[in-house]
């Protein structure tokens, strides 16, 4: 048992080491040591990375994603024009008649069927016309009308086309499909960051919340709070969890890019893409920190696992609603002022601004405002969560009502 000859070591405690960020750093180190530098983290991260790598290398290529336009013999002329205008952005499939085309659309094998009509062209779709197909059809119709008008005026259409193609601002340069295609890639890139934030919050925010609850139940927190302030403990846990989640996401993303590079299908990156990436990374970090902070604060209110999910709903909502809004606005209201407003609104800005950048040029002042709002949202979330945490984590005896948790003591 005890060894009488043991000598008590000479030690010197200096409380200033624990003040402010000092205490927070100690909390961060413990969280990283027990969650990041572990075998289970390494295994799960490698597994995710492997799945991402294999999926990107052997999964379906981007060419298959081009929308399929079916056409009948009587609409072949316009289909040929669409093909000439769209290039790889559209895939054509000839069908025998309208019935065969309708079947393809119903089975989801074609995005639309091109049919002749008395007034011009009839397009058969399942629900709504794919925007990319719609843009191509517009251009093709314009070109066909131009050819017809030229012929009526006695101008050789080929000469006209040749002249147009050599003129700046020509119809070919005006082919929206080219620009539209790149925008879609950037929109998906922007949404990818939003999805990444949601993924990190779901994968790591919920365990963080569980951890906070367990510290409360086991009363570890009582010992911790005799040394550090609640905000230090909360901040340390949130920072560490965010680092862990983003590390895992970065590894998975790296594996995906490596697979794309191996397959020779790395997407082209231009200035717009880089701006989306920059805004996306900032939005991702701030979005994750905000949601994780709120989740940790709200989790301190409860003592039982079955109460936890209900307590976390507001924080999960703050991740999922802006994510859904970003997708909806990008595809349905890309031209509306709703997108502009959402890209600068608290909570939404981190998810929506990267998508908006992919769709249109954004004035610098709006970018600055967006960043300021995002930072202010994070600070406000920390203030609210810190208050809820401090007002709840030492209280036992059931779920602490939010109003009581927020009450000034």
């Amino acid at each position, binding site marked *: 048992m005890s060894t009488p000859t043991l000598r008590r070591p000479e030690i010197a*405690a200096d409380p200033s080491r624990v003040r402010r960020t000092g205490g927070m750093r*100690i909390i961060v180190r413990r969280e990283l*040591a*027990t969650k990041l530098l572990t075998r289970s983290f390494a295994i799960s991260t490698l597994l995710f990375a492997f799945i991402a790598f294999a999926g990107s290398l052997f999964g379906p290529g981007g060419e298959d994603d081009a929308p399929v336009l079916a056409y009948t013999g009587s609409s072949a002329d316009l289909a040929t024009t669409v093909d000439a205008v769209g290039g790889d952005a559209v895939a054509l499939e000839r069908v025998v008649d309208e019935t065969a085309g309708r079947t393809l659309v119903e089975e989801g094998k074609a995005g639309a069927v091109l049919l002749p009509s008395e007034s011009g062209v009839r397009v058969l779709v399942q629900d709504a016309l794919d925007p990319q197909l719609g843009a191509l059809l517009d251009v093709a119709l314009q070109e066909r009308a131009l050819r017809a008008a030229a012929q009526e005026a006695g101008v050789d259409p080929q000469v006209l086309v040749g002249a147009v193609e050599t003129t700046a601002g020509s119809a070919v340069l005006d082919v929206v499909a080219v620009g539209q295609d790149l925008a879609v890639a950037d929109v998906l890139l922007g949404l990818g960051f939003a999805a990444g934030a949601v993924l990190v919050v779901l994968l790591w925010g919920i365990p963080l919340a569980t951890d906070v609850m367990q510290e409360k139940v086991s009363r*570890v*927190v*009582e010992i911790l709070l005799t*040394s550090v302030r609640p905000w230090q403990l909360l901040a340390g846990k949130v920072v560490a969890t965010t680092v862990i989640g983003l590390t895992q996401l970065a590894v998975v993303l790296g594996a995906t890019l490596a697979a794309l590079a191996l397959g020779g299908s790395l997407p082209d990156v231009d200035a717009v893409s880089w701006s989306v990436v920059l805004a996306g990374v900032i939005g991702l970090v701030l979005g994750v920190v905000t949601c994780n902070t709120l989740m940790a604060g709200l989790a301190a209110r409860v003592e039982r696992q079955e109460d936890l999910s209900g307590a976390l709903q507001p924080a999960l909502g703050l991740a999922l609603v802006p994510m859904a809004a970003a997708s909806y606005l990008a595809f349905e209201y890309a031209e509306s002022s709703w997108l502009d407003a959402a890209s600068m609104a608290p909570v939404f800005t981190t998810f929506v601004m990267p998508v908006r950048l992919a769709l249109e040029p954004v004035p610098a002042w709006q970018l600055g405002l967006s960043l300021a709002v995002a930072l202010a949202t994070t600070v406000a979330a920390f203030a609210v969560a810190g208050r809820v945490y401090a007002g709840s984590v030492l209280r036992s005896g059931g779920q602490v009502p939010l109003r009581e948790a927020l009450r000034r003591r």
Partner: protein
Amino acid sequence: MLALHHISKRYGPHRVLDDVGLEVPRGAIVGYVGGNGAGKTTSMRIVLGIATADAGRVTLDGAPVDAGVRARMGYMPEERGLYPTMQVQQQLQFFAELRGLSRADATRAARYWLDRLGLEERRDSPLEDLSLGNQQRVQLAAALVHEPDALVLDEPFSGLDPLAVDVMTQVLREEADRGIPVLFSSHQLELVERTCDRVAVLQGGRLVADGTVDELTGVNAHRYLLRSDADPADWVPDLGPAVHVSIESVADGAVTVRLAGDSDLQGLVDAVRRHGTLRELRPWRPSLTQVYRDVIDVPEQLQGARTRPTVEAQAS
């Protein structure tokens, strides 16, 4: 000296602590006893700043206990507060660093306490792999690892085997001998009697007794064991109106008699002999448990359940 001054605390309509004053001198071990819900844990949590008092203050050597002072205290909560899956040594180092030790000092201190408490073989084990007794030793080590200026331990002995109790007792004495105040709560009164220099009894949020073990067990009080065939109900009235006696029956028909103040022992002898034969009369030192029962107001409905009922009588 660690001191609580006029501490009061309410939770809603329930008064948990009522004007509690308690002193824990440096170098002394003070046992804090009382029934469940008496307010022991709440007052300890107030000392550590985990709960806030509605009134009163806590001082260490006369200075208010603030965050800086609390960081220099050692605390062991009743419901053990450690991380189940974290390695033992890693855990102690973490708590030591949180108390302001450098990493090197934290490592050395953690190693020392693991060796001191016989846990050197388990330093790399997750806490949950240890027996409950060993987990409790780790908890004690966590409270001591930064060489605290005061120790506050809530039920440190509960669930310990006799060997672990001896180790814990020895360690607490060493810490007190280092010159720090040690306050611990316990329901094990024999242990408190054996270990503590002073004892404070809390009941219903009020401090009802406080003193050295000798003072409380009444070295100076006039307590006697009396064996007689006379019924106390017959001879107590003969003692006269000025004599206040407390009578508690013990084994084999004997009773203990506490005469208040300067009561005349001969008067007691005469009174008993008038109603029967006095077979034995000798000084009696009660245990702390008996003293505890004396000072705690036991609800009437519980008194009938006691095997050794206490009778408080005012001679008339």
